[in-house]
């Protein structure tokens, strides 16, 4: 078995980073799912690649402000381009996203290869899968060390960044809960009330981008998508109340992050009954998120497949409602 020291130095920081990444992505992901723009998360997590690589090539490290600013700039550019292609090009939203993010991602891949010529330490792998195992906290050696403030000062940079970003996401969502809700539900009404729906659309893009950038180093760009969408979608199936959905998705996200990491790190050794190589933790987190979503799809008390098919009267009510909508559509 692993020692306390190994757990504190390797597993605890990595797991904390995974949980924080999952929590902040899950929280902002709710607004993507509610706006029926889940794929914007996919688009953004791909489109930030050239910004990250550009920032990296300039500074030569994977940390630091230039990388974050580069990624943020790329995300904003992607958001603006998608909107421009959709509106001025009169293309459907999915196609507009598909064009923008694939081309930007391709640009990032080319930049990586060109940068690799200069022998810098960046490859596509760490972008795609993240590097949870690279997050180390060397200061603590025993549990007692956690009481020492000096140990905390040595907290890994990724964990600190993720904690700050998670805090930012929570503050934004709490402060603008009402505005986010109304611009998601009825943008036309929001506009007539003087709440700029377009501005909030871009604000959501920026918030998603910040969460994605902070998380991508830990879990990788495509698995960010899983954390943006799956917990929110799972919560969506479990409740009809927006605040409940928000906190539920956060809980599911945190659970997925911790559980996925533990499964990836210790699952193989437990299965093998002895020491075994760990599985990719980020992949395991996404897999667990998928398992939870599937469970919700099947067993959710009211909106699950089983519940929908069971009691006859509820099915009939739903049918009636469907008819109402159809007859409305006919009268227009």
């Amino acid at each position, binding site marked *: 078995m692993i020692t306390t020291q190994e757990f504190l130095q390797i597993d605890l920081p990595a797991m904390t980073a995974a949980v924080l990444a999952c929590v902040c992505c899950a929280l902002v992901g709710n607004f993507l799912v*509610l706006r*029926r723009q889940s794929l914007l998360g996919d688009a953004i997590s791909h489109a930030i690649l050239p910004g990250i690589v550009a920032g990296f090539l300039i500074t030569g490290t994977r940390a630091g402000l230039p990388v974050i600013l580069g990624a943020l700039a790329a995300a904003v550019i992607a958001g603006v381009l998608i909107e421009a292609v959709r509106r001025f090009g009169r293309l459907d939203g999915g196609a507009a996203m598909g064009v923008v993010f694939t081309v930007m991602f391709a640009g990032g891949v080319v930049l990586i290869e060109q940068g690799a010529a200069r022998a810098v330490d960046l490859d596509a792998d760490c972008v795609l899968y993240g590097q949870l195992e690279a997050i180390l906290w060397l200061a603590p050696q025993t549990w007692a060390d956690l009481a020492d403030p000096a140990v905390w000062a040595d907290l890994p940079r990724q964990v600190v960044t993720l904690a700050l970003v998670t805090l930012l996401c929570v503050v934004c969502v709490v*402060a*603008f*809960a*009402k*505005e986010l*809700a*109304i611009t*998601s*539900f*009825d943008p*036309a*009404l*929001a*506009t*007539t*009330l*003087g*709440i*700029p729906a377009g501005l909030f659309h871009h604000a959501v893009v920026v918030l998603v981008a910040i969460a994605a950038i902070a998380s991508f180093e830990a879990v990788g760009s495509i698995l960010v998508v899983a954390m943006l969408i799956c917990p929110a979608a799972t919560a*969506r199936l479990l*409740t*009809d*109340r*927006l605040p*409940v*959905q928000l906190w539920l998705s956060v809980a599911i996200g945190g659970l997925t992050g911790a559980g996925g990491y533990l499964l990836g790190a210790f699952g193989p050794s437990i299965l093998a009954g002895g020491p075994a190589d760990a599985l990719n933790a980020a992949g395991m987190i996404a897999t667990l998120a998928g398992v939870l979503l599937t469970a919700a799809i099947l067993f959710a008390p009211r909106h699950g497949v089983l519940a929908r098919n069971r009691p006859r009267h509820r099915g009939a*009510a739903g049918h*009636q*409602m469907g008819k*109402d*909508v159809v*007859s*409305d*559509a006919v*009268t*227009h």
Partner: protein
Amino acid sequence: MLFPHSAPSIAETAATPPLEVRGLTVAYNRKPVLWSADYTAPARGLIAIVGPNGAGKSTFIKACLGLVPAVSGTVKVHGGPVAKRRALIGYVPQRETVDWDFPASALDVVAMGRYAMIGWCRPVGRAHKEAARACLDRVGMADFADRQIGQLSGGQQQRVFLARALAQEARVYFMDEPFAGVDAATERAVIQVLRDLDHAGRTVICVHHDLQTVADYFDHVLLLNTRVVAAGPVATTLNAETLRQTYGGRLGPGDVPMAGRDRAPDPGRDLAPLERGVA
């Protein structure tokens, strides 16, 4: 200014017409949907916007609210541009424009009408919740306050929208087909609310699709078919000639629904073949 709370006082705007539209033209791509519309709304009385499908009725409202860009023309609400009069304006969009699966209760939706009053970043306080509940009560929906909106019937959803408009406490209301696809009870509830609003001195402008009930429900009418065909009091404006100009072609005098009890057959049905194309 995002929340124009310095709304002009009643006295300041009393002399100005609730809605004044000049040369309003809206063109999606190339074809005008609304062509050079001029209209001045009267200070009192319920107003119906009437016209065939695709005549630009919803576009007229949306252009007035600044939701679709106009190619040319000006819109004034109580003497000022719409952007400076947001606090005076209430809007009831068509029901199918929103996602009824959204995780919100009826009360949550009605409270949305008060978001501008509450202001940025502040939660919905108890006073506003009570006001929203009172509005739900006025449309007979108090018992459904905590119901998820997707579980309401079409008529109940429409009443929630109406309650939300009431919660806005606006001076000028724009409503897009508030009677569309609702049951008889809702229709009665809606018209009662509209009349209450009128008595309280508010202006109500409704897109209305049912020619039969125009005379019963409304005092003024705006006949629209891409351009403004006619506008004025229902009694003098709604006649065979103006209807022919609005709906086109052969509409006999017997088909015209005049004010009062004896109802003509539904002219909407008779017009159906005409709308498909004039040979």
